């Protein structure tokens, strides 16, 4: 069956003296879409940065394909096949759209880069018309597509997606969600998806983790999370169905 592609073990990550991640463990299996939910400031972005090597954890192990990678530089991690689509449309604003995509394939030497650019245009047809224009002329949603396309150029085995739906119209959110599922199925890319849009993340995810204050407070299959009363109340905004009062995750830290 599917084996674990990525595993975090008791990760603790600091911003200076501030402890942002307080002992997180999680597993991402090959071929899965894993959703990571949590309120603002819960530490989701920091978890992704720790995985991709932008931050080094004080404690704990990040294991990718059976190898500890937590002390590596992010470019090394990327070359091992982890494509990180960071929060907030981080494109190269003065390079053309096509140059942005080419930079996504920086570590590749094979002759299929042009073909892959066409493939990205296949997933995001709107980008094609902008090929020779600087990325800064793209709209926010288009920049998000470019950032995803650029990470695809790495031919990643694992993609880290940090709030890809942020600020997008419902239609675009739907489109992005569809593409995430397609990439997962057609190209067998394993996904670790951070989202505020819990409905989308739980709809397309196989397995989910919920973070609060730097800790994982809940994990389960997405199907069961969708039906969990606390999730419905706090993340899906279905207040009426959550008849269990205003219990807060905070009070339930003892679960861990």
């Amino acid at each position, binding site marked *: 069956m599917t084996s674990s592609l990525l595993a975090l073990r008791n990760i603790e990550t600091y911003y200076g003296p501030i402890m942002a991640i307080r002992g997180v463990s999680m597993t991402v299996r090959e071929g899965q879409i894993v959703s990571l939910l949590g309120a603002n400031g819960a530490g989701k972005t920091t978890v992704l940065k720790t995985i991709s090597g932008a931050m080094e954890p004080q404690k704990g192990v990040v294991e990718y394909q059976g190898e500890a990678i937590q002390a590596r530089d992010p470019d090394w991690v990327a070359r091992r096949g982890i494509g990180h689509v960071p929060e907030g449309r*981080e494109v190269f604003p003065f390079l053309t759209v096509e140059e942005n995509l080419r930079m996504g394939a920086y570590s590749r030497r094979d002759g299929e880069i042009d073909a892959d650019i066409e493939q990205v245009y296949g997933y995001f047809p709107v980008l094609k018309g902008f090929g020779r224009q600087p990325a800064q002329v793209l709209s926010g949603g288009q920049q998000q597509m470019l950032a995803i396309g650029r990470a695809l150029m790495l031919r990643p085995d694992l993609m880290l997606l940090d709030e890809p739906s942020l600020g997008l119209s419902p239609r675009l959110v739907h489109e992005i969600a569809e593409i995430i599922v397609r990439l997962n199925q057609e190209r067998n890319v394993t996904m670790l998806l951070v989202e505020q849009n819990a409905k989308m993340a739980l709809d397309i995810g196989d397995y989910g983790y919920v973070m609060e204050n730097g800790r994982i407070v809940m994990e389960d299959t997405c199907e069961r999370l969708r039906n969990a009363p606390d999730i419905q109340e706090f993340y899906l905004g279905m207040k009426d169905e959550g008849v269990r009062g205003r219990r807060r995750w905070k009070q339930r830290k003892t679960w861990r």
Partner: protein
Amino acid sequence: MLGKKRVECGAFRRQGHFVEVIQLLISGVSQGCVYGLIALGFVLIYKATEMVNFAQGDIMMIGAFIAFTFINLLGWPFVWGFLAALAVMALLGAVTERLLLRPMIGEPHFAVLMLTIGLGFVLRTVAGERWGSEPKTLDLPWGSAVWRFGEVTVGGDDLAVVGGTLALCALLYLFFRFTRLGIAMQAASQNQLAAFYVGIPVKRVFGLVWALAAVLAACAGVLAPGGVIDPNIGFIGIKAFAAAIVGGLGSLPGAILGGLLVGLSEQFAGRYLWPGFSDVSAYVLLLAMLMIRPEGLFAAMQQKKV
């Protein structure tokens, strides 16, 4: 007053004046190219790492001395000696970045500035110890050749520095426009984290930026009109820094243009204002620029991401 006098003196005087202006233009442009080449180094390093390398002028001086070693002391043919000096300087730039600057990542900016100022001191001292403090003259193939066009004289060194600068600008343009590494350098300075995430070895790329800046500085040192070198010629780095600011500190064409402006203002100010003024004109230009258009001629088009 001046204007009236000129009218009275008639045609001969006017022609003499014209020749003088042309002559000042020539020396201003060739000195300006030197400032421009050093300023390119300031801009490259600033754009990539948001640090200012105040040792840039002294790196130019070291480049000139290394060329001096190959060409004068070892007697290598000019082209080979020059190329060898560029290779040594590329290595020196990369090693400096690796040993001195990279460990400083995350330290406050002023600490890095102090470090580069200290590096300048060290380089001057080392050069004084190694090559002595009396001025040396580089053996250049154009020597003191001079061409006359009517009354205007153009030195071989003027042609060399202008031609060399044009060639380097063209090469840089092609490099940044068309090569994978050149585009990656731009990517790394536009969005460092994103560059890391796509797998660009950003640290190594920054090392190469330092190498490139050192190579450009060495070209400036060898091509500088006159060909006279001593351990203190690096002080013109401060004028080149002014040129970089005038040009916008974020723009490569701006660096060259700023260099030319500083070079020209220096020549004309020295002639038409008062003699001592030529040395301060760079700073007057800088102050004027900061007051009129603080973002520089070519406003760095990018808002740096925080």
